[in-house]
């Protein structure tokens, strides 16, 4: 059976949309519900910095911003991941009262938002969104390769 690229790509555009497009609507709703639980949960736990393009300077060995590898699995969520990262960068409070002076790697002085997630809040916020993105890639692949007879039998 040929791979359904349209269903696969729709699944990457929005979680569950690929299954919706092949009349697997019951599965689509459940997929979207699971994804939203993980994604919104991650943002609730870690705040807007759970999904970000770059790691801040204070957290890298060089002391300068670096590409954040965690964004790779998170990008499996498609446009939602990119929109979250862009909006998140703008949401982090950076007013005078929101900044803390910290010692950067190399003992230079830097500033961070006092709302920056640290410890388990940062870990779990990032992890929830990363696993949601990874699962969505598997789900989109399933939408692309789901055989016709199984679709009819499973229904919605």
């Amino acid at each position, binding site marked *: 059976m040929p791979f359904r690229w349209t269903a696969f790509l729709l699944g990457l555009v929005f979680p569950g949309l690929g299954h919706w497009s092949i009349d697997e609507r019951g599965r689509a709703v459940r997929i979207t519900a699971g994804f939203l639980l993980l994604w919104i949960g991650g943002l609730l736990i870690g705040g*807007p910095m759970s999904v970000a393009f770059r790691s801040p300077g204070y957290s890298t060995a060089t002391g300068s911003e670096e590409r954040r590898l965690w964004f790779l699995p998170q990008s499996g969520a498609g446009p939602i991941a990119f929109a979250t990262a862009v909006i998140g960068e703008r949401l982090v409070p950076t007013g005078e009262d929101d900044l803390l002076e910290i010692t950067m790697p190399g003992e230079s002085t830097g500033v961070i938002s006092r709302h920056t997630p640290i410890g388990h809040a940062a870990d779990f916020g990032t992890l929830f969104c990363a696993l949601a993105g990874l699962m969505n890639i598997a789900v989109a692949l399933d939408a692309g390769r789901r055989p016709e007879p199984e679709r009819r039998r499973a*229904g*919605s």
Partner: protein
Amino acid sequence: MIDATVTLGWTPFLHPMPGVQSHWLWLLPVLIFGLAMMYKAIRVETLDRWPREVAMMVGQVLLAFFGFAVGLYVVVQMLVPLLPAG
């Protein structure tokens, strides 16, 4: 114990959730539940079995974590101290 003043000052989606550092273990069932919801949505043959399959997967994964925790506890707290020092 979560500080009430910190919780009242929390703005969801803008600030990290307070109290996570000391209560992070409660996030594990939520994480597994979300994963199971997505995974079982594509794995079950008929969707009427989905709730049961999700509940079973959550239970199995939590049980596996508990087993690993017990195993590690036995190794670190009971077996390692028996080893000769030096």
